[in-house]
């Protein structure tokens, strides 16, 4: 791999001769990264503790269960990002970029522990035919961990990891309107651990991850019959960190009330034990990135 130096606001055009993933057939396309080098070797969120290391062999089996559920039961095609020694969190591909059609806004991580992932993500997207955009050194943005599309707009989190000024770039580069929501609870440090937009306009969310302004923005944009609030206990089980592929939802074990609520709305619910990844502050959605 050559020339992986990140440049400010660089826009790489689509390479000629490559069919972008976004142009492939209607099969949902997902990016994952095998947990070959996954472990908890530093603590950059309240869930992580180097005193409580994860069982890496169990983590590999859990990741494979999730992979199989996504490919065999949810019907998505999974692309794999090559794992890299020394980058244990590369497995959380949701943070790699914000993807809209053929544009990928590449993450610029707040913590130096994860900044090494940025050039690998940029290279992958560029090699797959995406137009890639990187951010200036002073502006942090953590990909689809902090920006999720619901219908025609983006719900984007800021403060804990992502700077609000990065949201302007999302709009100028994708044309999508953005709703900026401050994340006020350190345990819910990315917006994808406190909201999840679903098929047919449904919207799972944990209200207490937001202040009154954020709750008001959500209530003004999402009709009440589409909102599915979760409890503090469910949120702590990463119920909002859900993978949604068409009518199928996948999330961590537990949260039976939520599972029932989703079944009554017509969803197929799949649950996978992801205990070892939760020790790192991530779950099903964090381990995946929808790229087409």
């Amino acid at each position, binding site marked *: 791999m050559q020339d992986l130096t990140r440049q400010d606001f660089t826009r790489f055009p689509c390479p000629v001769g490559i069919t972008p993933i976004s142009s492939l057939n209607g099969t949902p396309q997902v990016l994952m990264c095998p947990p070959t080098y996954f472990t908890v070797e530093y603590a950059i969120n309240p869930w992580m503790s180097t005193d409580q290391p994860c069982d890496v062999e169990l983590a590999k089996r859990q990741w494979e269960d999730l992979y199989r559920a996504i490919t065999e039961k949810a019907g998505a095609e999974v692309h794999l990002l090559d794992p890299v020694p020394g980058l244990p969190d590369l497995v959380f591909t949701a943070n790699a970029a914000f993807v809209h059609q053929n544009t990928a806004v590449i993450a610029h991580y707040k913590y130096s522990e994860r900044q090494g992932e940025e050039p690998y993500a940029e290279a992958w997207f560029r090699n797959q035919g995406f137009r890639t955009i990187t951010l200036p050194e002073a502006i942090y943005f953590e990909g689809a961990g902090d920006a999720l599309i619901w219908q025609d707009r983006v719900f984007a989190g*800021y*403060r804990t990891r992502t700077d*609000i*000024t990065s949201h*302007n770039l999302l*709009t100028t580069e994708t044309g999508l309107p953005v*709703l*900026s929501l*401050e994340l006020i609870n350190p345990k819910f440090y990315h917006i994808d651990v406190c909201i999840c937009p679903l098929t047919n306009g449904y919207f799972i969310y944990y209200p207490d991850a937001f202040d009154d302004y954020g709750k008001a923005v959500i209530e003004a944009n999402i009709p009440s019959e589409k909102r599915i609030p979760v409890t503090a206990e469910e949120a702590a089980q990463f119920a909002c960190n859900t993978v949604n592929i068409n009518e199928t939802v996948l999330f961590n074990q537990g949260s039976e009330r939520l599972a029932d609520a989703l079944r009554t709305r017509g969803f197929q619910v799949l649950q996978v034990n992801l205990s070892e990844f939760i020790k790192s502050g991530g779950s099903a959605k964090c381990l995946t990135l929808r790229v087409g």
Partner: protein
Amino acid sequence: MTSAQHFPESATLCLEGHLIDSLTLAKVIDTIQQLGGDYHLNHLSIGSRKNQLSSVILTLFAPDSEKLSKILEAITPYGAKALSVQDAILTAAQKNPPTPILPFSLPSHVRVNGEWIPVQSEGMEFVLAVNPQAKTAQLKTLKEVQPGEHLVEGFQGIQWTTPELQGTPPCKI
């Protein structure tokens, strides 16, 4: 009594982003007031579509420099940036003047006897012309600008009240 009389410390700030639908501007204003400051809105441009950004220039007032710093620290995560800490950027006017740097909203039509008449406003955009030697500054229309005059570019170095004028109301646009 005015904000400036109560609050001798001030800073001019700009904000750009999804300020209205996200309630970010409301949050900034509430934070300023909750922390004991006050503000004056100098310039507000609201995106005409949901995918257009809005921008605001406001003057923040605080009773002392410590409070001013606290308020600035509290609203920085919402994207507020201080503007008035550096000199203005001056450019020499050319034969064809640049895009106006202080675009005021002008009416486009006036209704008379049931009919909308278009307003002739070509060349009526305002710019700020400065004479550094004479230490004078004047708002001019583009038509009034002479080649070689120094025009202010952007909002850097512009304040809506000056230290010498503390005690007078902030100017109303």
